[in-house]
């Protein structure tokens, strides 16, 4: 076997040029997936289907029809809350353990059209609700850098699969940081696009006004290439954006940060942030300044309310979106004597975190409490959005940490939901505001007696549809980072 090219960009080019085949790429991916089996990144593999699809891609290329295939033969890991026709979409839940989706998500259809090969479905917190992938009904995913630690979540499976080198690309989903946070924990690039940039059709809903499919790669170029394939308007999703996508991925390395205004948000550098992560952000800031970017202090005064607002809006929508799992039409159904008992016993199969969120979400939407909770949450959400709008009048992008700490040990926060929620403190605001954000690796924490060196993620946020700008800055920082 020839040595497989390292990145998706290289692999797709090699496959298009006939210097590698999709079949080889897929074969190699399954080999690596098996080697990394102990991470528990995957919930199901599509080995037979993937090999057939790879052969079909190779035939197209042999027939000279492969020039347009942006992801020719590139293996992709897909979070198991994104529907792939004919196979499981478990959402990491007992409720959908044996459910088979009758349709492809729009993002999956776009992957297929670009010649990518979905090799398997990856682990996640149940219905994407969690920050560690420990809430999966099928067991946690382990961090490739330290298997005693979490991979982060909820897209822990897809991120671990990319970080461990099983596949070059992964699709995840974001509601409050579920791609960026595991990307930071595992040392990968994670992208949360502008709300509406990627169709949500086929993404199983958690918080519909926040949900967005995100891309994961080992490099900025790869994550950008994947986004360029799955982005775009979709008539099947009324909330998808009609804004033209433009070229998101080509020539990013040529961008020069000179003259860019980079925001430095005071609120993101307060108590609770690990010094090594602060230092990483400062180093990244200094590289940008050295290259001629202007660093501007900005204020996002409503940031402290982000977590509270997020966990009000998201759980309200979650309680509604999860109502359909009633055992009537598909998925798990408990045997019971009457309808009410059937509902109760069926829905008892949700995990503890899901039950907590359904109950809290039901409460905040209840008559008499709606205004105080959901109504207020929506109002503050608009102010958080307003903070960003004002900041982006003065800066092109905002630099911040992705998480306050690196990956924590499995089990450490499992019984402390509030501590778990605080992991999302720097990521939820982008979801609430609908703006794009990316996390990229920037060095590691120093190794200590009880903790190895762990990856650090830094975050860039930008105004609506500024993904290309974020990729350009990210590409520059990637070159400058201590990992380079």
């Amino acid at each position, binding site marked *: 076997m020839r040595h497989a090219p390292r990145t998706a960009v290289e692999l797709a080019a090699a496959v298009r040029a006939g210097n590698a085949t999709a079949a080889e790429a897929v074969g190699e991916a399954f080999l690596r997936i098996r080697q990394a089996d102990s991470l528990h990144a995957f919930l199901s593999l599509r080995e037979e289907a993937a090999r057939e699809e790879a052969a079909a891609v190779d035939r197209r290329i042999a027939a000279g029809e492969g020039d347009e295939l942006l992801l020719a033969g590139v293996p992709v890991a897909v979070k198991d809350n994104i529907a792939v026709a004919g196979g499981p979409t478990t959402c990491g839940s007992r409720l959908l353990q044996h459910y088979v989706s009758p349709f492809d998500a729009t993002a999956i259809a776009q992957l297929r059209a670009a010649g990518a090969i979905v090799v398997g479905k990856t682990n996640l917190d149940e219905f994407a609700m969690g920050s560690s992938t420990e809430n999966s009904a099928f067991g946690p995913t382990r961090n490739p850098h330290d298997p005693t630690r979490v991979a982060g979540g909820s897209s822990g499976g897809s991120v671990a699969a990319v970080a461990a080198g099983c596949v070059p690309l992964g699709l995840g989903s974001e509601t409050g940081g579920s791609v960026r946070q595991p990307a930071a924990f595992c040392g990968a690039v994670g992208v949360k696009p502008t709300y509406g940039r990627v169709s*949500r059709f086929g993404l199983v*809903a958690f918080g519909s006004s926040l949900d967005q499919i995100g891309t994961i790669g080992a490099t900025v170029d790869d994550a950008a290439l994947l986004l360029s394939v799955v982005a775009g308007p979709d008539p099947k999703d009324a909330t998808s954006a009609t804004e033209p996508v433009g070229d998101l991925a080509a020539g990013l390395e040529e961008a020069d940060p000179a003259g860019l205004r980079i925001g430095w948000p005071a609120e993101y550098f307060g108590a609770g942030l690990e010094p090594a992560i602060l230092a990483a952000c400062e180093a990244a800031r200094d590289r940008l300044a050295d290259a001629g970017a202007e660093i501007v202090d900005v204020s996002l005064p409503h940031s402290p309310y982000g977590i509270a607002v997020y966990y009000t809006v998201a759980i309200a929508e979650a309680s*509604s979106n999860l109502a359909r799992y009633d055992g009537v039409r598909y998925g798990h159904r408990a045997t019971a004597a009457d309808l009410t008992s059937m509902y109760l016993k069926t829905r008892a199969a949700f995990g503890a975190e899901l039950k907590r969120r359904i109950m809290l979400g039901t409460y905040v939407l209840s008559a008499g409490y709606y205004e105080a909770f959901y109504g207020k949450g929506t109002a503050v959400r608009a102010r958080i959005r307003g903070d960003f709008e004002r900041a982006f009048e003065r800066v092109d992008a905002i630099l911040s940490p992705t998480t306050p700490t690196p990956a924590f040990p499995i089990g450490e926060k499992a019984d402390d939901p509030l501590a778990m929620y605080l992991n999302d403190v720097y990521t939820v605001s982008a979801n609430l505001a609908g703006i794009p954000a990316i996390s990229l690796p920037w060095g590691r924490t120093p190794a200590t007696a009880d903790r190895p060196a762990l990856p650090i993620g830094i975050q860039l946020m930008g105004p609506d549809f500024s993904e290309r700008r974020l990729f350009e800055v990210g590409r520059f920082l990637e070159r400058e980072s201590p990992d380079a």
Partner: protein
Amino acid sequence: MREPAAPAGAWEPVIGLEVHVQLATASKIFCGCATAYGAPPNTQICPICLGYPGALPVLNAGAVELAARAALALGCEVHPRSIFARKHYFYPDLPKGYQISQYDRPLATGGALAIRLDDGSAKSIGITRVHLEEDAGKSTHGADGTRVDFNRCGLPLIEVVSEPDLASPREAFLYLSALKRSLEYLAVSDCNMEEGSLRCDANVSLRPRGESRLGTKTEVKNVNSFRYVEAALAFEIERQAAILERGEAVVHETLLWDAGRGEARAMRSKELSHDYRYFPEPDLEPLDLDAAWLAEIREGLPEGPAARADRFVEAYGLPEYDAGVLTATRPLADWFEAAAAAFDDPKEVSNWVMGEVLRLANERGETVALAPEPRPLAPAALAQLLALKAAGTISGSVAKEVLAEMVETGTGAAEIVRERGLAQVSDAAALAAEVDAVIAAHPGEVAAFRGGKQGLIGFFMGQVMKRTGGQANPQLVNALLRQKLAG
């Protein structure tokens, strides 16, 4: 119908209706599934209307247009922005665990519908709101359990909510009839009650006559015919009156009308009922309607039934009664106007349409003026028949026979008259010979007539008609008889 018996006379009923109307779109409101009635269960379904994981709704623009037409025709203000909301409850025929509806920002508010009371006076019934929503599936409860047909799930509905302006079951009936007629005119809905495309919930309370404060109301759910609405309201008014007469309080509750038993049974107390937990539907953008688009819809609105009846009185000189009958449905009114355009005596056309044409249509089980295949009667064909009659070629009674044959065979009037030799004999010389023969054959009757029994003219007419096989021109025969009998 039953009016509430005494002692309800002391109480004034206050009634408001919530009417669900299925819009006449080809596909469902949020997916591409067909809406045709009567398909085998669960054959018009897809992952979207079944609420599969990851499926999303996309609004059917056709449903919005029909809803806007209805709202504008009902005189409502259609709002430039309305918001879809999720209404939550658990039931097996509701796949998502919520219904997509509109809540605090409905499509339209503040309209009115005029009804004509039995004493001929007009009354305006306020329309509180018109909003868009999706239908749920249909549950059928049987001995072997409950079956659910999801074909109905996701059908586009408007809910038309009236003000509590209705003061009797009869008024409720008249309001429903007027609403149905308006919506049919607009082609917004087929309003077929048997197929469930028009369903009604009624809210009713009583208060002492003269009191302006409202009493405690009850809601009678899902009554599937206008007559049942009337009967259910009459029942409920009597029941509430009896409670109030005993000095007790009416309980705020939902009742289900049992047509078989003729009574309303309590479904569930509102206090125990669901908290629907409405919140804005995040899968759909706010519904923004362009003012120019709305103006276009408004301009394209067809003439409503009331306006059309007024015009029939004005333009055709018809009595109000005729205008009311002829405008009962839009196809009938269209049919009349086409016939009236082809024959220059609108009252004569009206008489024939209201009489023979509708009689024949009813006999044939057709609801509109013989419009359906296989042998439609064209308005122009009636005009041709009436022209033959006006010219004296055929008599009125022959014309009725000819019309029946036209309807039966689809043949034109002139052809039937020619083929069957039905043209009247108007040849004075030939008829004079027949008249002479009759006079010669009945000397006794002639003497009696000349002696003053003028009524015998009918006898002589009959004899001449008999000899001519009914084809003699009656006016001519009459004149000849009078002339010769006088001589």
